[in-house]
């Protein structure tokens, strides 16, 4: 379990392609073990997540792919300590997850910037909450702003920005206090298709420089394949993981990879999985376990 971290959390550029994908020696950042979530309203019990297990290595970018309402967001929120776990166990950096901690950054579907604060103030909001030295982090915030292409917008208010720009600010806000792990809950799903692609690229740019462990929830197949080192496929309720595939494209990821035949092949395969998952989920009794066994590594 305790293995030396792949790299220091010092956030410097390590242009070591495939570091997160190849290395079997990297420590486990997130360990999810038999996690279930049951919403019990008293009148009825809904199983949102049922018996999900997986590990995420340090420095790895993992996407959880599944149809809307399949419980993947609930799973992510449990990893962030924002939802209680009904049974099972989530360990983050070896410590059981019971409540939120600042070493985990969360990005939500909605940028939800504070409307009365400027871009810079919004990005520095976590610093204020965590009572860290403002002056020190202002510089970091400014470099993040430059990196996501918001230079010159530091003093604008959220209502003066487009949806994509707001989500860029949210990326900066999630990274400014340097969390070890980044949890992203469909952060681009509210954006139009073109902006969405741009945001994917912006996220790749920034992630390849800061390399955090990342767990990214999405219902977009292409987005998952474009961004992630590994894709976990979830089916609809009760939500289980039916596939765990490794994406063979290295880092830094070529931006034109989405045009390659291999990319499309993976997308087609994932789509067929999700579609058969639908049928299977309806056809089988709950608790039968995954339709496909995980472990088809290196597709």
């Amino acid at each position, binding site marked *: 379990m305790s293995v030396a971290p792949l790299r220091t959390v010092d956030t410097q550029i390590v242009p070591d392609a495939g570091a997160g994908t190849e290395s079997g020696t990297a420590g486990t950042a997130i360990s999810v073990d038999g996690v279930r979530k049951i919403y019990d309203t008293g009148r009825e019990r809904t199983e949102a997540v049922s018996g999900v297990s997986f590990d995420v290595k340090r420095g790895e970018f993992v996407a959880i792919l599944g149809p809307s309402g399949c419980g993947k967001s609930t799973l992510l929120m449990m990893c*962030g*300590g*924002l939802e209680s776990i009904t049974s099972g166990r989530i360990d983050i950096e070896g410590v059981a997850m019971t*409540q*939120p*901690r*600042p070493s*985990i*950054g*969360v990005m*939500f*579907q*909605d940028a*939800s910037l*504070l409307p*009365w*604060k400027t871009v810079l103030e919004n990005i520095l*909001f*976590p610093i*204020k*909450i*965590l009572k860290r030295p403002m002056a020190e982090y202002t510089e970091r915030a400014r470099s993040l702003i430059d990196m996501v292409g918001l230079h010159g917008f530091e003093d604008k208010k959220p209502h003066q920005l487009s949806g994509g720009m707001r989500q860029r600010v949210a990326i900066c806000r999630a990274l400014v*206090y340097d969390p070890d792990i980044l949890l992203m809950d469909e952060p681009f799903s509210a954006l139009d298709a073109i902006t969405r692609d741009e945001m994917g690229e912006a996220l790749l740019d920034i992630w390849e420089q800061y390399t955090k462990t990342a767990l990214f929830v999405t219902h977009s197949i292409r987005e998952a394949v474009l961004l992630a080192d590994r894709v976990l496929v979830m089916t609809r309720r009760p939500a289980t993981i039916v596939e765990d595939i490794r994406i063979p494209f290295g880092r830094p990821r070529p931006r034109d990879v989405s045009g390659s035949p291999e990319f499309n092949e993976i997308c087609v395969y994932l789509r067929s999985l999700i579609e058969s998952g639908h049928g299977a989920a309806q056809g089988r009794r709950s608790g039968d376990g995954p339709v496909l066994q995980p472990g088809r590594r290196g597709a």
Partner: protein
Amino acid sequence: MSITANSSGAAILDIAAPSRVRRLIRANMAVILPVATALSVLIVWQIVTVAFQIPRVILPAPSEIGAHFLTNLPALLNHARHTGLEALGAFVLATAAGATLAGLMAAFPLAREILQPNLVAFQLIPKIALAPMFIIWLGIDTPSRLAFAVFMSFFPVVISTTVGLSNTDPVSLRLCRSLAASGVQTFFQVRVPFALPYLFNGMRIASTMAIIGVVVAEFISSRAGLGFYILYSSSRMETVGIFSALLMLCIVGLVLFGAVVLAERIVRRTYLA
């Protein structure tokens, strides 16, 4: 500027030559329209009273009211001072109490569960009907008028602020939780700023309710104030005096209302900066 001989010639002129005056008018339409409407009502009022020789006791002409207002200005100002100060005091107390109570209800869910339904039910009581009780409880002087005005203006503040505090953007609250923010941090850095527009909305309503409260209380017991002046004028069948007092009440109301708007601007600029 020549006009083309065209069926829509006027329209073309309109677009081609927006004179400076016309542009000014268009820019200030929001002011011009209501003022013009009010002025035309006054003019019609004046014409009707003169033309139909309506008795002064029934409806005095605007010109008479204006003249009466100016000649009695010192007395009216003195009465306005009484009413205005009591209304201001009541408004400040109601705002402080209402905001505090709303804050407590937001911070302690149990307090909200206990108080909120009761507040809503209480809100339904026609509060003016209780005015005589305040005389019985607190006597015939300032304390009873003040208390009654506070009673009138307190509810808009507490209800509006409570709505504001419970309408905080849920994702922002989640963000705070993900940062392990303390309850105090979340309250003052996220919930209160989100609730401020609601608080000021409640305060704007409270400012008018406070004046109503004081005037009603003055109707019941007072030796000065605009409510007293109205009652006094009416007992002497001096209708023009009632209208003068009403005009003065409008001015007092506008001043208090304006003060709230100004305060909102200042708070937005400082607290939310």
